[in-house]
């Protein structure tokens, strides 16, 4: 078990080193360095950037993130349920259906109130 996680850790380490090495070391050695004001300007889909990047975002983004969290947490509970299901039987099935039904009320409410619409 611990050895499996050692592989994960090794993978993580090699991944980080790979990115740091190629971007910070290798590309610095290989690339020519001829900067000019045009090249150093902020890239924004080929357009000239308008205003600063510190703008107030719309509250709608927050609503999407919150609805996302709710269903991420639901998935978190579904996972141990699925793993232990063969020992739990039909009763656990009913429990999970109640759980999902209560959350679906929330989704229905969000839908009805237009929180999922992008106007």
């Amino acid at each position, binding site marked *: *078990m611990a050895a499996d*996680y050692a592989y994960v850790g090794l993978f993580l380490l090699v991944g980080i080193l790979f990115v740091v090495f190629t971007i910070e070391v290798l590309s610095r050695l290989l690339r020519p360095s001829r900067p000019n004001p045009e090249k150093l300007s902020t890239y924004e889909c080929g357009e000239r950037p308008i205003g600063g990047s*510190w*703008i*107030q*975002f*719309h*509250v*709608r*983004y*927050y*609503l999407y*993130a*919150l*609805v*996302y*969290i*709710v269903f*991420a*947490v*639901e*998935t*978190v*509970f579904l*996972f*141990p*349920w*699925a*793993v*232990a*299901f063969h*020992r*739990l039987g039909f*009763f*656990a099935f009913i*429990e*999970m259906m*109640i*759980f*999902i039904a*209560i*959350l679906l*009320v*929330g*989704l229905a*409410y*969000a839908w009805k*109130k237009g*929180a999922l619409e992008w106007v």
Partner: protein
Amino acid sequence: MELGLFIVLALVAMASAIAVIIQRNPVYSALYLILTFLSLAGLYLQLQAQFIAAIQVIVYAGAIMVLFLFVIMLLDLRKEEQRAVKGGYQLLIGLLLAAILLGELGLVFGGGVLKGVPGEFSPEKVSALGNTQVVGRLLFTDFLLPFELTSVILLVAIVGAIVLAKRRLD
């Protein structure tokens, strides 16, 4: 090996937690918080709590951090970045409260106030069955009511956020 890994993870967790409160830019704070969550996930793995470690990464480092970042963008904290930290009495009160908290922690963990009751699942049994399966079995039998209550709490969270946000939208 195990102790070394623990020390590295604990140091990364503490250093990034301190960076969260020292950073003036709230977006950088949020990014350091992700690092704290990831090193905590590593500590959970060391405690043989694989399920919690996975949840820590998926829910905290993933979903909750997205929410945090959106809140930071929503609040428009441009001015916060330039504000200097006030010294003097604030620092003094902060240090005093930190000392009290440290004393409390020492009392709880050193004084043996926290003594768990050995349950049905011993560590050997848990590692034989698999962490997630044990969590599932207990959650859907003994801890059924807290589990079902979670859905109500999540429902309240959705409804509350929509009610609050709708007022701003209209």
